[in-house]
Each structure stands twice: as C-alpha cells, then as structure tokens.
C-alpha cells in the first residue's frame, strides 16, 4: 500500500459514514481478465480511496480523484473472491462501498455490440461516438485515451450510450486513440473498443477579399469576401461597414450582410482613399470564429465627358468656310449628351456635315470674333463646356490708284492695292471685261500694264484677288483712252547753210536737223481728209457746221483735221483778220465791239454748230500758225485764198499773267511770242474745241 493511504485509517477512525457510495463494476472475473470499477458521482467527493483483499493480481486507481480502479487478475490466480472497499472522502465525512467479485471460469461471449462514429479525427475537431446493441438502461463507462493510455489533450463528455470526444488543438499524444465503452452484462464486464486515428490539424478559416484597385464615384462597385477552410455546416454572417469615408464624400453600402457587398460613393473632386471593414462570424455547433479585416480602397472622381476640338482654320475671312471636328470621350464609358450652341449666329453659320463634324461659314463684314459653345454632360449631370472662338476678318478692300484717263497707244498702268499683306494673297487674276483685247504685262501682280489700242475706247477690268480656301475679293476698274493729238507742223521751209547763212544757190551744204527737214511738212504724199498748206489739213464749214467747198462764200469756219479744233473764219466782210478789238468794252452795245462780245454772239448763234467759242490758248493759237509766207494758213483762216498779209499781226491768246496777255507776232516768215499789256488791243482768232 502506498504512503498516501496512510492517513486513511485515521480518517476512517475519526470520520463519519454518511451514506452508501455507488461503484459501478462487474460481479465476476475470470483469471487473466482485467476489469474496471468506477465511482458514480465521484464529483461529490474530494478523493476516492480504495482497499481490497489479497489476491493474485494487480490493482491501481486512476482519474483525478482516483475514482477509477483497474484490477488485473493473474491467469494463474486461484482466488475465489476478491473484496474491495471504496471510500468517498468528503472532508470529515466519507461514504463506503463494498464490492465482492467472484472469480469464475468460462466468461460468456459478449453480445454483438459496435461503436459508431468517425474513425478519423483532427486536432481541434470533435466527434460523437455511440455504442449500439446494448439494452437501453445499460450503464456505459467511456474510457478514451491514446495507445499509451494518456488522455491529455482529450476532452470526453459521456452521455449514456453516447460520448463526445474533442481533440484539443494542442493535443500532442499519439495518433491512435482508443474509444472504449465499458459495460457490465450479466455480472461480467466487457470492453468494446473503437480505434480512431488522428489526422492532421484542420486549417483555420481564412478570409480573403476581392476588390478593385479603385472605384469610380457614382458608379456601383462590388467587393467579394471569400472564407476558406470553413468547418462543415458552419454558419457565416457577414457585416460590412465604412470605417472612413472618402474626403468630402460618403459611401453607401448595399447587401452589406452578404459576402458580396455593393458600394456607391458620392462624387468627389479628387481621388481619395476610403477605409472599409468586413466582419465574418463563423459558427458551428461547437465553435465560433470571427474574422475581421479593414482595408483601403481608392475612390476616383466621376469625371464629366472630355471635350476637345480641331478647327481647320481659327481665323477666317468673311465668307470663308472651315471645318470643326469635335471629339468627346467619356472617361467612365457612360452615356452622355452633347450639344453645340452658336453664341453668335449673326457672325457665323454652322452646318452639321457629319457625325462630330461641322462646317463653319464666317459672316461678318467687320473684324469680329465668333463663338461656339460645346456642351457634354454624362448621366450624372457632370458637365463640361468649351468655347470655340473663331476670329473673323473683314474681307480686304481693293482700291485702284491708276489714272482713269489715258491717251490711246500709250502704256496704261493699272495699279491696285489690297489692304492686306501680300503674304495673304495666293493668286491675282485680271479679267478684261470691256475694250479691245489687250495683253497685260505682269498680269499676276497688282500693277500690270498694257499698251492701249490706237482707237480711243473704254477698257474695263475685274481684279480678282484669291485669298485661298475658296475666298476671293474682286473689284472692277475702268480706263478710258482718248485720241492723241499730233501737233501741226510749222510750215517752216527755210534752210541754213554751214556758214550760218540762209541757204542759197551759193551755199555749199545745208545744216541738218532743221525744222524744214522734219515733220508733216516734209512728208511726201501726205494723206489728208481735207486740204491745206504744207502739212495742214482743213475743211471749211458753213454756218450750220456742214462741210462746204474750200473758200466757199458761205463758209464760216475752218476745221483743223489734225488738231480737231474749229476756227472762226476771219473774213474781211465779217471778222477782218487785222481788226483789233479790246477783250472787253463796257460801253459796247453791239456784237462786234469787243472780243468777248463776238464770242458771246458766236456762242449765242451756235456758229458752225459750236457753242464753246473762245480765245485760243498759246498752244492752240500756235497750232494753226504757219511761217510759210508763200502758203500761209492765214489765207485759209481769212477765207481768202489770195491773201498775203503784209502787216504784222498781234494775235491775242487766252493766256494772261501779270496784267499781260500772251500774243504771237506774225509777220511773213517770222514768228515771235511775247507778253503784251492787257490795255493793248490786238488781233485775235477764235476757236471752238467741241
């Protein structure tokens, strides 16, 4: 007997027996058999002590209160009975149970009994085992231990014919467990054993999340939670929540009690982080686990549609066209609306020519800026606007700076200017619209020229300045050409010899370059419309201006076919050539007492169909004069073919300067020109230009 039992006699001597102790065990045992005794309700006692009679075998107690006694009878045992007393010690009180075990031979075979339950278990896992095949009221003692008899790390919860075994996660015994059901039938004790192997440790449930790198505001997104290593038949509850919303925004969750939560963030200006959390509660019959994760997501702003455009030409001439191409992209690939507003319809016309393509036509005759506005909005109302400015330039103006009147046969310059730099001009074209066809020299410049036809006429040209891109300006100009006026020759016939003397029979040679050697006077067989001395070409006109015979009695005027001037015939019976008159005579009441009176009379009468009679100018007077004394024009002017004026004529002209008039002194072959006092009367010729 061991030392710890030394105090038992004293206890038994001093203690008090209260009631019977119930011990469960067999009544029979055969040699070589091992049986087990268990104290029922051992939890009521502090300690269980055992005493037994002498027998050929071994006995030992187990359990935290020594409530289990195992007895092994030697096969060679010759014992007939074994007596065992159990003490249930509770302070000074104790209960006693006396057991009498009869040693017998020929133990009956056990009934057909099985233990049902899993044959494999994992650490941390529990399982139920049930013994089958026994009467319902059979007491079962469940003894579960590893193959070395250790039950450390094992939790056994007996419940009649069923026992729940849970293997602690930190169990470190052998991998083979023995589930023993000990029962007594007909006094004999039997042990039904089930071998259970211990598997590997069950992995812990793990929570993983699937979410996007970023979410866009106003667009619903989702996050999926997945729990792996779930216990069988586990119940899972999900709880999602927003820990920290994005800056200046919020997140709304839907289906937040499922593994797939939907989230929707309100719009934000800039990308912002948000913190969310999910809590997963896993519940089994005997376990509960909570998995929780906090995680960050990025919320990006929901941007409006992006607008851009290409304008073929940003600066247009009035009437110029250009193409506008609009590009709209929606960052979130959402539906959007687009609109183009013409803010200045009076300045530009807009026509849609294709999807996203517009044709703009400038319409302003002043420098101006037209504006279009592009709108694009997504389904959330996120709006983007863009103003397209188009500069409109008024069309340049063509001005002509050349003279509008030129003489026939002369070189006629056309000079145009355009109030834009030449670099703006892509082409210059002159179109002749009227007049004899001429060839323009420099027709691709603004300053071409042409040689006018000999026939006086009106020329019209249209200048077209091409500014490119289908824009041009044009303007008409005209030039009238007038008949050139060949000067009459002088009638000079005199020659001078190389001795500086008048040429004579004795002269050796004549000087070259004298008047007599050049001009109409020296042209042989000169073609004339009428007739006249030397190079002069006259016709006589009657009072009505009709052609009459040379030196006819009814002739009143002499028309010079070269100069185009018409002269009053200074005939002796009407207007004597040598008659001197003042220009003006205030006392004169008649029509022939002053030059102006004569002029007024002629114009009143419309002599020879003319109404512009006047004193001739210096050049006009000079044009009709001849210094050929032998065939003087004065004979023609006086309508007297035989006239040979011997006196000096002072022919007054219309030129006046410093109270003097200019007069030609004509005497035979001599001609002078000088200024005379206006007080001095003079002879005169009268001329009509029209």
């Amino acid at each position, binding site marked *: 007997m061991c030392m710890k039992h030394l105090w038992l006699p004293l206890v038994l001597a001093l203690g008090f027996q209260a009631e019977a102790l119930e011990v469960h065990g067999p009544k029979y045992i055969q040699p070589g058999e091992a049986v087990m005794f268990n104290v029922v309700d051992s939890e009521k006692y502090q300690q269980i002590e055992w005493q037994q009679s002498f027998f050929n075998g071994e006995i030992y107690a187990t359990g935290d209160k020594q409530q289990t006694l195992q007895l092994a009878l030697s096969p060679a045992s010759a014992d007939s009975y074994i007596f065992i007393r159990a003490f249930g010690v509770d302070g000074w009180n104790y209960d006693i149970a006396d057991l009498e075990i009869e040693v017998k031979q020929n133990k009956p075979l056990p009934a057909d009994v099985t233990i049902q339950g899993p044959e494999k278990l994992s650490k941390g896992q529990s399982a139920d085992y049930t013994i089958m095949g026994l009467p319902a009221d059979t007491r079962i003692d469940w003894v579960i231990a590893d193959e070395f008899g250790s039950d450390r790390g094992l939790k056994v919860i007996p419940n009649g014919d069923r026992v729940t075994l849970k293997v602690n996660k930190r169990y470190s015994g052998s991998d083979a467990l023995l589930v023993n059901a000990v029962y007594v039938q007909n006094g004999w004790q039997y042990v039904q054993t089930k071998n259970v192997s211990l598997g590997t440790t069950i992995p812990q449930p793990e929570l993983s999340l699937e979410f996007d790198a970023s979410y866009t505001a106003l667009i619903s997104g989702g996050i999926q939670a997945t729990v792996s290593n779930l216990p069988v038949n586990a119940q899972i509850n999900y709880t999602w929540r927003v820990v920290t919303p994005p800056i200046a925004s919020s997140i709304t969750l839907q289906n937040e009690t499922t593994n797939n939560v939907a989230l929707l963030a309100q719009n934000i200006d800039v990308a912002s982080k948000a913190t969310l959390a999910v809590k997963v509660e896993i519940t089994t019959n005997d376990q509960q686990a909570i998995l929780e994760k906090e995680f960050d997501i990025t919320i990006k702003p929901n941007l409006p549609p992006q607008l851009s455009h290409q304008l073929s030409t940003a600066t247009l001439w009035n009437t110029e066209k250009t193409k506008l191409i609009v590009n709209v992209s929606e960052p979130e690939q959402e539906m959007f609306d687009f609109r183009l507003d013409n803010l200045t319809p009076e300045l530009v016309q807009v026509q849609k020519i294709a999807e996203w393509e517009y044709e703009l036509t400038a319409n302003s005759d002043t420098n101006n800026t037209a504006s279009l506005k592009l709108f694009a909005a997504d389904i959330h109302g996120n709006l983007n606007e863009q103003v397209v400015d188009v500069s409109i330039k008024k069309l340049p103006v063509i001005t002509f700076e050349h003279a509008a009147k030129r*003489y026939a046969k002369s070189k006629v310059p056309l000079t145009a200017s355009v109030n834009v730099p030449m670099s703006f001009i892509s082409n210059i074209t002159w179109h002749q619209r009227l007049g004899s066809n001429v060839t323009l020299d420099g027709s691709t410049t603004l300053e071409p020229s042409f040689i006018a036809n000999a026939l006086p006429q009106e020329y019209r040209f249209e200048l077209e300045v091409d500014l490119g891109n289908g824009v041009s300006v044009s303007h008409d100009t005209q030039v009238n050409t007038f008949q*050139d006026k060949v000067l009459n020759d002088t009638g000079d016939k*005199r020659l001078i010899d190389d001795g*500086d003397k008048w040429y004579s029979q004795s002269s050796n040679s004549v000087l070259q*370059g004298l008047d007599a050697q050049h001009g109409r006077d020296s042209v042989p067989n000169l073609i004339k419309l009428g007739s006249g001395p030397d190079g002069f070409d006259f016709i006589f006109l009657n009072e009505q201006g009709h052609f009459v015979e040379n030196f006819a009695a009814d002739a009143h005027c002499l028309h010079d076919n070269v100069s185009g001037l018409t002269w009053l015939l200074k005939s002796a019976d009407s207007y004597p050539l040598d008659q001197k008159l003042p220009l003006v005579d205030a006392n004169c009441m008649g029509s022939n007492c002053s030059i102006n009176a004569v002029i007024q009379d002629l114009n009143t009468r419309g002599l020879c169909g003319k109404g512009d009679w006047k004193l001739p100018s210096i050049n006009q007077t000079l044009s009709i004069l001849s*210094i050929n004394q032998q065939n003087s024009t004065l004979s023609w002017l006086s309508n007297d073919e035989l006239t040979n004026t011997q006196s000096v004529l002072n022919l007054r002209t219309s030129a006046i300067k410093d109270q003097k008039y200019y007069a030609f002194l004509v005497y035979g072959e*001599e001609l*002078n020109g000088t200024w005379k006092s206006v007080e001095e009367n003079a002879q005169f010729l009268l001329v009509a230009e029209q």
Partner: protein
Amino acid sequence: MDKLIFVLSVLVSGQAIANASCVNDAPIRFDKGDDQILLDNKHRLMWMDCVIEPTTKTCLSDNQSGFSMTGKQALEVATSVTIEGYSDWRLPNVKELVSLFAHECEAENAKLVMQLPDRLNYVWTSTTASSGSSAGLLVLSTASTQLVPWVISLSGPAVLLVRNIDQTVE
C-alpha cells in the same frame, strides 16, 4: 545742286503724273520711266529728260554747269547723238517746244516732271527765224514762254532733244 529736281511723291517708275489742280481732268499726258526719258502721250513725243552737255553730248550731270550751245552746235549734237538707245533725236520745232512749257493746266506742266537745271532759260528750237539779217533759230524762254529769234552762231540757249514715239528706229 545744279538741277531743279522736283521730288514728287507720284514720280515713281512708270507712274502717271497727274495733278488735282488740272481743272479739265485731262488724260495723263506724261509718263516717266526709270531712264531719262519722258513720254508725251498726248502728242506722241519722246523727250530726253535733261539738257545736253555740249562736250559729252550726254545728259548734264550735277557737277557740270555748262549747257550753252550755238544753234549750229545744237543741230549737230541733236543729229549725231545716240542716247538711251535712240539715234533719231532732233531739236524740237517751235510748236513742240512750246507745247512742253506753255501748259494750260498743272497736269501738263512739264517743269513739274522734268529734271532741268533751275537756271535754265532759253532752249533751242529747230524752227528758223531771222535775227536782223542773220539766220537764226527760234528759242523759247522757259521762264517767260517768250519766243525770240537767236542768231545761229551765238551760244546761250540749251538743248532739249525730242523724237517721235511712233517713228521707226533707223
């Protein structure tokens, strides 16, 4: 500066010369080119826009002062020079020369267009005139427009050259 040079804004290459004071709005009479030629479109005459220097028989330059010639010299120079590619130059007759200086409106004022010495006065014509008993030529005072006879052997007047525009070049 020995020459009277009229600097007019309208005097550019090939530019027609006009003057707003010309009351009769006449066609453009004179055209001036890059060279020293003045075209009289009205009378179809081509003038040398200078007086001729006697020794060189070319246009009087700024550093030359003498342009006086006798009538005989004038005739000889006029009939012998080749200037601006033409050899048919001559002295103007009296009507041609007067038409150049006795203008009736400013648009036809040759003095405004021509580059003539400011001290120029008398100019030779090819038209004969008696100076007393001597043979002479008419000369025109460009200052007063007076026509006077000048003994052909006496110097004084200057030479202006003219040719017909339509005259075939020999």
